[in-house]
């Protein structure tokens, strides 16, 4: 319980909502227990007949079920050791939003590949100038390709209006995969250094592979499972 209170305190301002469910058996003592322990997140009591326990196929206590920002159960039957890493991973995902139609396909790719969106507002010439800068630096070109799904759009068009872009000069706009604008930069006169800074500032935070592996091994130990590691690359 202290661990859960700590978790709720540390991640509450990022959107974590913790709800406890007590079994119906012994539920009459739950309120006193909650007060005694100083638990400040909501705790419910299951209905007789193990309705909640049965619906979620709970097979051990405590058992955790983690719901994403869109309300979908993303991880079930989770145990203590993997809880925080799972919470961190789901909190890092963008909040659901209504995407302009022009971004739908790119956003789907961005979600699937854990990328951000990059909308280049301007003329063909503006976009060619942008691409020319990135082509001069192979690492920069790869960084943009690895981290962003790029979309082109004219200034003053419907996408600019939908995203609230009022600039009259060519502009690069970074958004999360849910369509939330993160930052923009004027494309006119953009050099490699500023493009690098912009790309780094708005890309998805890189998870540490050592942490991912350690978390998986801890979960495997607790749940008596194996770890299947898939080594991949952006290309």
């Amino acid at each position: 319980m202290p661990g859960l209170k700590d978790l709720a305190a540390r991640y509450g301002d990022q959107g974590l909502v913790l709800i406890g469910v007590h079994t119906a058996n012994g539920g009459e003592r739950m309120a006193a227990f909650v007060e005694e322990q100083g638990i400040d997140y909501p705790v419910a009591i299951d209905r007789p007949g193990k309705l909640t326990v049965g619906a979620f196929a709970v097979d051990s206590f405590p058992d955790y079920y983690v719901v994403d920002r869109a309300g979908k159960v993303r991880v079930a039957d989770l145990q203590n050791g993997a809880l925080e890493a799972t919470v961190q991973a789901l909190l890092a995902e963008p909040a659901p939003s209504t995407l302009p139609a022009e971004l739908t396909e790119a956003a789907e790719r961005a979600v699937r590949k854990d990328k951000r969106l990059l909308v280049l507002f301007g003329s063909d010439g503006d976009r060619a100038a942008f691409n020319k800068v990135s082509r001069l630096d192979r690492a920069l070109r790869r960084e943009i390709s690895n981290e962003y799904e790029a979309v082109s759009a004219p200034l003053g068009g419907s996408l600019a209006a939908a995203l609230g872009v009022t600039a009259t000069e060519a502009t690069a706009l970074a958004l999360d995969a849910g369509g939330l604008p993160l930052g923009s930069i004027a494309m006119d006169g953009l050099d490699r250094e500023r493009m690098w800074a912009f790309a780094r500032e708005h890309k998805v935070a890189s998870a540490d592979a050592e942490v991912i592996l350690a978390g998986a091994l801890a979960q495997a130990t607790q749940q008596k499972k194996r770890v299947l590691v898939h080594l991949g690359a952006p290309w």
Partner: protein
Amino acid sequence: MERDYVTIKIDVERNANGAAVAKRLRGERSGGIPWMVILDADGKELVSSDAPTGNIGCPVQPEEVAWFGEMVQRSSIRLGDDDVAGILVELEAYAKTQRR
């Protein structure tokens, strides 16, 4: 698969320390990516996607699908033969869509 496996994906280029973890797990073995390895909870390798004929990568061809089945057979804890067969049926259904 979830009954017996905690599945993770490590991007050798985008994840911090991705290349280092890949090097530690794979050593000097080559054969391109994707590459898979199944570890026990202590981190010891049980089996990898290196079939006798080389890395199967993303299993698409029948022999690659078969090796993935071998990987599961060699490492599973709770999954029985029927479970593995069911996994391979699903994988084969996907693989068929990827074959040229």
